[in-house]
């Protein structure tokens, strides 16, 4: 690589650089200048610096010449990765906004700095075109998130959650590394394109099957797919709420995207088939089984929950299952671009919705982080605006039009159904998914029933959402509504075009 390329590399990796600089700046400002200020001001300044960094990075992504291959085989920057990074930056912005009231820690600088570093990891993850890059970015994200999960030192649950997350995550990372090293051994290269070229025509030999299973286990953990989901409910419940929001949104978007890329590019040619009654070994049937169990366990598990955060965790597992359907579609020639576009659309809108839902939970729970279903009783009369936002988020998660969750599901399902158009091979999965989403309405309505129908307990605390929360949550609710009602001009136009470039 000549020296001229470094300038270019810096330019292409500009957004990541800007966010990294912001992460350092937050630390510097908070520890150096704001040390003795009141906590509220420290959070305000730190959040402002973080937001500034994210916005600058966003601007950069919009003004970059595209498409461009940087450091070929290592990082790739194309319209699709740009789009996903923009989604990630927006999600981080909102996470920072709902962190403004997070009074759980005095280490303000470290908190925001780690938030940004996790985002940097996710952004690199999205751009990775090489299994080494994939692993390094994955670790950067994960390590930041482990620490963030443990950040509430006053709550023993937080430490427990972090330990669980870390132990499961460490194990998953080992599996990933093992799988990726086998891939390297089989193909003699670390770049994804090289791997697919090296493996072409070999079919699914036993070693490749092992590599496939190991890789799937690693990513399955990141996206909390059954049976690698066990950490999710405890982590979502124990982690500080904004952190749980980031794990459920940004981390999921990035992981799904890279998961799709590794499967589509790295394991091209060993898709197999997931048709009902005609399974052919490959990654499609493996993911199909994971999707089925995620939807089943996620939805049934959520019914039994009395903590809203755990409910959201199980619902996240179920939504992971729906998203896997889009990934399956991306493995079939007729729906390659629709599948990847559907995964990105679903993950992005799901991320926005879930950050919003966690934001409401944080505002309702107050300093005690109460999140029992009963704590939401009568909310519509205590805080009408907040309730309306929660109504939008919950109904979007349940898939009610005209909200984004509805179109997301519809888009994913049509993609999966169209994957084998001749004999509707994957229709059985779509039928299962639709049946499960009918189940899901029940538990989302349980939450809304508390909010709108039940009377408030006599000792219910008044709910006062701060101005920043109200603005952020209203914006999120509006975004969920608009992305659902007008998906074409707002997102699909660019998304489809970008997906066509990657997956013609």
């Amino acid at each position: 690589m000549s020296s001229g390329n470094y300038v270019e590399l810096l330019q292409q990796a500009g957004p990541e650089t800007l966010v990294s600089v912001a992460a350092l700046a937050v630390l510097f400002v908070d520890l150096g200048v704001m040390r003795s200020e009141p906590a509220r001001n420290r959070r305000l300044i730190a959040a402002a610096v973080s937001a500034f960094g994210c916005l600058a990075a966003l601007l950069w992504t919009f003004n970059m010449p595209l498409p461009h291959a940087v450091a070929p085989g290592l990082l790739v920057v194309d319209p699709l990765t740009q789009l996903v990074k923009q989604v990630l930056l927006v999600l981080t912005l909102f996470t920072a906004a709902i962190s403004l009231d997070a009074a759980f820690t005095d280490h303000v600088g470290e908190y925001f700095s780690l938030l940004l570093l996790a985002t940097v990891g996710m952004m690199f993850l999205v751009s990775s075109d090489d299994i080494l890059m994939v692993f390094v970015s994955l670790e950067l994200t994960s390590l930041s998130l482990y620490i963030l999960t443990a950040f509430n030192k006053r709550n023993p649950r937080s430490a427990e959650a972090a330990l669980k997350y870390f132990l499961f995550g460490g194990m998953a990372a080992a599996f990933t590394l093992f799988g990726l090293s086998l891939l390297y051994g089989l193909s003699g290269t670390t770049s994804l394109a090289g791997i697919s070229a090296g493996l072409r025509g070999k079919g699914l030999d036993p070693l490749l099957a092992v590599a496939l299973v190991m890789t799937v286990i690693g990513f399955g953990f990141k996206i909390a797919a059954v049976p690698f989901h066990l950490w999710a409910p405890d982590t979502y419940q124990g982690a500080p709420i904004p952190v749980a929001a980031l794990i459920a949104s940004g981390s999921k978007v990035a992981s799904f995207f890279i998961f799709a890329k590794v499967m589509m590019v790295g394991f091209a040619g060993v898709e197999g088939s997931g048709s009902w009654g005609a399974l052919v070994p490959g990654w499609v049937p493996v993911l199909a089984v994971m999707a089925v169990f995620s939807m089943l366990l996620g939805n049934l598990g959520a019914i039994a929950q009395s903590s809203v955060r755990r409910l959201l965790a199980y619902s996240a597992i179920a939504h992971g299952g729906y998203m896997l359907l889009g990934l399956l579609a991306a493995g079939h020639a007729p729906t390659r671009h629709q599948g990847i576009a559907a995964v990105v659309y679903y993950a992005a809108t799901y991320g926005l919705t879930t950050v919003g839902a966690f934001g409401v939970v944080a505002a309702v729970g107050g300093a005690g982080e109460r999140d029992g279903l009963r704590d939401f009783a009568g909310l519509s009369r205590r805080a009408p605006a907040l309730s309306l936002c929660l109504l939008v988020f919950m109904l979007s998660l349940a898939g009610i039009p005209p909200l984004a969750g509805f179109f997301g599901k519809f888009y994913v399902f049509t993609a999966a159904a169209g994957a084998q158009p001749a004999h509707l091979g994957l229709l059985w999965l779509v039928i299962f998914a639709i049946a499960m989403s009918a189940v899901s309405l029940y538990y989302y309505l349980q939450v809304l029933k508390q909010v709108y129908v039940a009377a408030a307990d006599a000792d219910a605390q008044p709910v006062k959402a701060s101005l920043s929360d109200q603005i952020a949550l209203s914006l999120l609710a509006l975004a969920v509504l608009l992305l659902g009602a007008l998906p074409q001009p707002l997102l699909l136009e660019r998304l489809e075009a970008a997906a066509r470039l990657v997956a013609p």
Partner: protein
Amino acid sequence: MLAWTIYLSFFGVALLMLLPGLSARGARVLALLTASGGLLVALAGAVQHSHGPFPVTVARVPWIQALGIDYHLAVDGISLTLLVLNGLAAVAGILFSWNIEVRTREFFAFYLALIGGVYGVFLSFDLFLLFAFYEVAIIPKYFLIAIWGSTRKEYGAMKLALYSFVGSAMVLVGLIAAYVAAGSHGFDLNQMSQFVFPESFQFWAFPVVFVGFAILAGLWPFHTWAPTGHVAAPTAASMLLAGVVMKLGAYGALRVAMTLFPAGLRAWQGSIAVLAVIGIVYGAMVALVQKDFKFVIGYSSVSHMGFVLLGLMTLEVTGLSGAVLQMFSHGIIAGLLFGVVGRMVYDRTHTRELSELEPMSLGQALPFAGVTFVIAAVASMGLPGFSGFVAELSVLIGAWKAFPPLALCGGLGIVVGVAYLLRALQRAFFADHPPSPASAHPLEPISVPERIGAMLLIGVSLLIGLYPRLLLDLIVPSWQSPLFAQLRREAGL
């Protein structure tokens, strides 16, 4: 212009939600104005488009090009009929819920959202759009019942929401499969109705989509949401449930399942007709033994909706037109019956047990309610001169041509219908009891909005009963539209 029925309703919802300072009275007036505006627009549209040729496009804008989805609103005579029905039911429902004092603003916001969703379904000619509006209508029903209902309201509300959602899940499966099978070009109804789906595909897709919709139409044995839902709902919501929402199911079954999959329809025609007749007879029989006044009406709805489904299965112009006419007629009459039971009687006596109503001799205490119920009952029995007579007669004539034994059984349902209505009428209003001390409390007199609402519904039922051509001239030509080309071919119309 007809698109304004939708926009007006949702505009009303937005106003009600965004004006937190609005008084209960202001909310009522605003809702009434919005609903009346919707009714006027629907009526004007019905006049404007009555000459066809159907279908007439109302609005068409590309919406989600990625999947070939258009924002496409259009009407034929069938949807025009139901749009007018929805407008009437909406206005009458508001008049009958003038006494809602608890969270009035929210009540009417949910109410108008439901109305708007229903208008949307009746206007959509893009299947994605139709499905979206169909789902929009589910959630307000839940809240209307769960918050303002009575008698196991949360159970009834959840049951209704889940039944509806399961039904719409079945519809969604059929829609997505049909979209892919037709080559993934889009969801336009006009185009899809011309596509000939393979027979093996239609054989499974038809029952899935038909039953998915018909759950909401009270198809036996999937009707169990209806009595509990109707009983739990507040008056205005049960008027809408019976008056409009059940029609949503029947309309969807006709508009989507029967239009797209006529070969599948042919295969399942007999079985569904049998289920419809079981619904007619079973609903009437069960209504005969109810102790709760509102359950009588709830089961009678199942019975009368059986006529709609039977009419649809005749595949013959008289029967089909009768089915659509019955949708309209039952919407008006069931609205009236629920209005009397829920608003005029229950809100004053606070009981619906027939045995407790007997000693109150309501015929004397509330003469207006008594007379209204007599009229509604004879209209529901199918007395000539009221809309129910024309509608059910047409259905039976059609059914006689298609399956004579079933037509006979259906006729039996009418006879039982007379029995349960007379029984309820006698026990609730004209019991031969000495006045008991409980009736010493004078009941609040029937208010003006109630009187207007009752007159409106009675007037419409009489008008259609005496001059059914008003609607039949809209409905009958609709069967000739290109939309039903495949259905005509299959049924030999």
